[in-house]
């Protein structure tokens, strides 16, 4: 079953900006789906329409078969959303924030209390339940928004940059948690600017740019489309000039570091052999950029943005 089906979705804002230019997108139930794109590409507009915070200009959206036009309440009941911007009531307690949200979805006070304990414990906020929203750290606010979105046990969880501004330790614990709920059956759509996050968590990906989907495939298929990768090699011996390697683009970063671009039809063994032949020894190596990031930049950097 499709968790989300978007057909020919168009959004033109009153100021004339065309944010979405005929989007078609399907997300299968149970998927962990990455929706990527540069700033202003249309990701948040798309999420806004799906969560009914933005009015569409034309097109159709269904959530688990429920049309936003004809079965809005049923569609909304299936969705939990964590927006990009912090939107909690700073003057209310953590407990009230989650239980009130549950009430808006029809959970009785008894059900809301039971569910709040589960969600707040899962997101490590149980000890903070009496604190006001404003007293929480940035990471806690993000976790609170996830807890709030999960109160009614949505079948589709939409996360719009949920780990923005969160330190790496908390981000990784959030990754583990999101994996768990996905494995338990919740479909997740994730937008993020941390592309290693998308590469690590998601099985399928769509890249949106200028209001259009420009790539949509399984994550591994998408990564295979990367024609070249750039590696940064640390050398034991300093070099005065860029070493020439036949068939490879090489750049000198500093006397102990060079960048080598390796295309799909070549391999790293040749690079190491050529460097060894010149008396240079590689002591460590890393990708210059995460693979998805490299592909993303190549796909979206073709023309200046007009959105």
């Amino acid at each position, binding site marked *: 079953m499709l968790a989300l089906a978007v057909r020919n979705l168009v959004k033109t804002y009153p100021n004339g900006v065309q944010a979405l230019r005929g989007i078609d997108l399907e997300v299968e139930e149970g998927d962990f789906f990455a929706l990527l794109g540069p700033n202003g590409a249309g990701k948040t507009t798309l999420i806004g329409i799906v969560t009914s915070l933005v009015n569409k200009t034309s097109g159709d959206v269904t959530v688990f078969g429920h049309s936003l036009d004809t079965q809005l309440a049923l569609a909304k009941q299936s969705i939990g959303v964590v927006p990009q911007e912090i939107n909690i009531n700073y003057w209310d307690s953590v407990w009230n924030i989650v239980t009130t949200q549950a009430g*808006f979805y029809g959970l009785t006070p008894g059900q809301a209390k039971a569910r709040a304990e589960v969600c707040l414990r899962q997101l490590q906020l149980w000890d903070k339940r009496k604190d006001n929203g404003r007293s929480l750290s940035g990471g806690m606010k993000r976790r609170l928004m996830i807890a709030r979105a999960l109160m009614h046990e949505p079948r589709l969880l939409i996360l719009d940059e949920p780990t923005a501004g969160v330190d790496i330790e908390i981000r990784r614990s959030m990754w583990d948690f999101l994996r768990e709920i996905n494995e338990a059956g919740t479909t997740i759509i994730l937008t993020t600017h941390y592309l290693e996050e998308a590469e690590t968590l998601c099985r399928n990906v769509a890249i949106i740019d200028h209001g259009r989907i420009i790539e949509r495939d399984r994550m591994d298929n998408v990564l295979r489309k990367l024609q070249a990768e750039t590696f940064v090699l640390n050398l034991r011996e300093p070099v005065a000039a860029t070493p020439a390697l036949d068939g490879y683009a090489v750049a000198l970063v500093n006397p102990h570091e060079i960048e080598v671009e390796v295309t799909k039809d070549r391999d790293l063994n040749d690079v190491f052999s050529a460097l060894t032949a010149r008396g240079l020894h590689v002591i460590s190596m890393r990708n210059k950029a995460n693979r998805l990031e490299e592909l993303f930049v190549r796909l979206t950097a073709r023309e200046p943005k007009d959105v």
Partner: protein
Amino acid sequence: MSAPTPVQVQLVALYTLVRKETTRVFRIWVQTLVPPAMTTALYFLIFGNLIGKRIGQMDGVDYAQYIAPGLIMMQVITTSYGNVVSSFFSAKMQRHLEEMLVAPMSNWAIILGHTFGGVVRGLAVAGMVTAVALFFTHLHVTHVFITLSVVVLTAFVFSLGGLINAILAKNFDDVSVVPSFVLAPLSYLGGVFYSVSLLPGWAETLSKANPILYMVNAFRYGMLGVSDIDIVVAYAIIIGFAAVLFAACVVLLGRGTGLRT
């Protein structure tokens, strides 16, 4: 957890919003309930006692007694309007209004939940102001049903007005303009301190275009049994306003005006 029916969802959502709004009124009671009582005490002290003693009677009742229903109604109007406009607009500005907009709450539940908070605050303020009035004058209720129904309906009308203001407002100036430049003049010119029968003919006719005149007089009739206005006409106007404003709220929320881009 078993799935609730659509009707259950709406009822629970409404209950949740009502509880949230009423809790807010009583949690910040120093801001929501005390100032109207203080202001009214000053009105009674100056207009009721100091100046009122020189005026004597109006429409056959003591002047302090005459202005009491109007002062109560003026505070009900101001606070019910202000309660909804501040609650809804601050939620909109802080964006936690989205909690409601993404949930399967119907528009009528959002409207009724917020207006209920305004009505509760209006009634609580009415109670406090009445208690203050009793320090300065003797009050009795001539028609209990009329008194209660008019105060509830008036609070409902102005709660709806506050909601419309909050929906349409884009900044804090937009929420302060109506209370300062519309509600205050209409309240003062709505027969709170005087009988419109004392006015010149043209001014009396002009006053009858002011809806607050009908609310103040209907409430005064309920309490004191005196009014410048036919009570049936007053009810028709109050209920008419409630219906029109409720419909406007439904339309605005349905379109997403001021809320959805």
